[in-house]
């Protein structure tokens, strides 16, 4: 099945547009695409009529042009008929928004649609989903544009079994300045499933990190998924819901009770270097860090801070997550000390985490980052930049990014997420250095880089 018509359509039919119900999902989808996206959009309703001074097509076959994507938002019972018409017209694929299938017990109806589509090699997303948000191409979410917060176009591909989680996560991505290459709510996943999306996103040039929200796999599907991640050239992040032990029945062997369903899931993700996020905050941090640094580290971090307290807090959180803060080579310390401003040379604490104090200036931070990067014990620099002291300029983000680029070691920054510090944040982010809005967030980014446990 070729999925390009789903995610890169030139023409789209929205089936189910209502002449009387302005907030009908089909109306919202038609309006936003018709008005704001390059995709040429056609409204369809079997009863015909006039909508926004345009005549509705009574069937998809009435549209003269070839249709790449059909968005189906009609009552569940009518869906098989509509899918049949789409197949006959040679439509490239569909998003079935409608609910009323497996999620409400109508397994047979869903199977009927899935069987028809399979026979015709007709790909569809859903049913019971929000569908596709492909920035600059198409948006099948039935949520009015003014209600949702859309991240900018970026390099994270996100696939979610739940539409609600997807939209909520998009708000979080937008808040952290993380861009999306493609977001797909796969709903009941009767046709397009996680494994198909992994294939598509792996070859998609705009995607650098692939993230999933998964509730569960079918029989044997977890193995198929993990085997695909092994072949995948991009980092994969996963957030799993449904971790409770409810599913584990009284078991007759030690092994079965030791290896509950979630435990198995989680350990296998680790085995195959998939970064499992414990919650939505981790998911956000992991996506940002891995979109900048796809390669893994063992977990030896050098921390630079201007406040002893921040260093201690970071060290505590690092320990919780199994991240090491190794000692620094004495030669590195000597070099840094020699180059520090005379004002701080004797008050700065030059053990990891480095506390350069509130009296430090840009040059001290840059020097420390440069030489810490050259220390063989350190794999990644964490710069906790509290921009309150007068010695720190607005250029510090751009300057440190330059160091990271020259030295070739990952750098992660913490800068408070306030408008007045945006110039510092952008100095990092526009140069592909991830910035967290909390110390914890910065540590989670470092944790993401450790997704491959050293063997």
């Amino acid at each position, binding site marked *: 099945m070729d999925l390009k018509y789903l995610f890169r359509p030139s023409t789209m039919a929205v089936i189910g547009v209502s002449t009387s119900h302005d907030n009908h999902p089909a109306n919202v989808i038609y309006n936003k695409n018709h008005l704001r996206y390059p995709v040429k959009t056609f409204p369809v309703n079997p009863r015909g009529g006039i909508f926004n001074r345009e005549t509705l097509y009574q069937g998809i076959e009435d549209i003269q042009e070839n249709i790449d994507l059909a968005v189906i938002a009609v009552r569940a019972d009518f869906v098989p008929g509509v899918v049949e018409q789409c197949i006959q017209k040679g439509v490239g694929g569909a998003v079935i928004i409608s609910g009323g299938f497996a999620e409400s017990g109508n397994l047979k109806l869903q199977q009927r649609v899935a069987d028809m589509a399979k026979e015709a090699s007709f790909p569809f997303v859903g049913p019971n989903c929000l569908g596709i948000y492909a920035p600059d191409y198409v948006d099948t979410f039935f949520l009015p544009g003014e209600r949702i917060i859309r991240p900018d176009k970026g390099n994270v591909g996100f696939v979610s079994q739940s539409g609600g989680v997807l939209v909520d996560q998009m708000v979080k991505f937008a808040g952290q300045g993380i861009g999306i290459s493609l977001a797909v709510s796969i709903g009941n996943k009767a046709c397009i499933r996680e494994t198909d999306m992994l294939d598509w996103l792996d070859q998609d040039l705009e995607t650098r990190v692939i993230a999933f929200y998964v509730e569960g796999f079918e029989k*044997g599907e977890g*193995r198929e998924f993990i085997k695909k991640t092994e072949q995948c050239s991009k980092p994969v992040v996963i957030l799993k819901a449904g971790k409770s032990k409810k599913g584990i029945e009284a*078991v007759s062997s*030690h*092994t*079965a009770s*030791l290896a509950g*369903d979630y435990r*198995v899931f989680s350990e296998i993700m680790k*085995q195959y270097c998939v970064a499992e996020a414990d919650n939505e905050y981790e998911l956000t941090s992991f996506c940002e860090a891995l979109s900048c640094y796809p390669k893994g580290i063992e977990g030896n971090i050098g921390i630079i801070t201007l406040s002893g307290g921040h260093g201690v807090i970071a060290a505590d959180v690092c320990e919780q997550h199994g991240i090491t803060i190794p000692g620094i080579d004495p030669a590195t310390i000597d070099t840094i000390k020699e180059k520090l401003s005379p004002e701080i040379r004797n008050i700065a604490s030059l053990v990891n985490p480095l506390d350069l104090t509130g009296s430090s200036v840009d040059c001290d931070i840059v020097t420390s980052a440069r030489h810490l990067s050259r220390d063989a014990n350190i794999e990644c620099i964490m710069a906790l930049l509290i921009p309150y002291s007068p010695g720190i300029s607005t250029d510090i983000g751009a300057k440190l990014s330059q160091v990271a680029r020259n030295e070739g070691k990952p750098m992660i920054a913490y800068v408070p997420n306030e408008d007045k510090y945006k110039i510092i944040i952008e100095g990092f982010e526009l140069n592909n250095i991830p910035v967290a809005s909390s110390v914890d967030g910065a540590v989670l980014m470092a944790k993401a880089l450790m997704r491959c446990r050293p063997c």
Partner: protein
Amino acid sequence: MLNKTVKKIIEKSRSLGWVLEPDAKAIMKLQGFDIPDSVLTNSFKTAGQFLKNCKSPVVAKAVSKKILHKTEQSAVVTGIISSDHLKNEMERLKKLVGCEAILVEEMVQGIEVIIGAKNDFQFGPVIVFGIGGTSVEIYNDTAVRMAPLNSNDVLSMAESLKAKQILFGYRGKTGVNMESLTHLLVNFSLFVMEQENNIESVDLNPVMCTKEQCVIVDARIMLQSS
């Protein structure tokens, strides 16, 4: 030939739903894994002769289709050195529910580990490895990986245990032979892959590991309901 015998044992055990210990161990032996020297008998004379020839104390276990968990039913006696003790315990074990024969084995010492397998709904065969013994569920110091395993997987499983120092040697005590352990785990995972359609779960618990070898002291194979 090897597969035929395994198949035969599995078919024989299918109605019971699990493979009795002597049969399960026979399957493990066919895979090239070490099991203790043993004799399966109801005769005290045979058992006594085995004890006499044995350099170490022996263990006596009741073999019963009605006893899945032997410890709970007091169906295992360890550290037997005298023939009187052996005789008394054999008499007692024979009276346990469904007891068909007594398995008398040389008693093997070492670090107790558990090696297990489970046929997971989402991922198929997975392997569990950790600190073993009867308290395994209390400590739950285990690692899980998808089968088949490679030697790096085995090392990372061992490294991930809280009690990993016990395996690698601790306070002057020697650890386990990682080469034997790796051989056992990797080949066990291949066996489980091969028997994916028959097996529901396997417990090798305990496996006694020393710096020389790993010996499977107890084995239980739960079969899929056909």
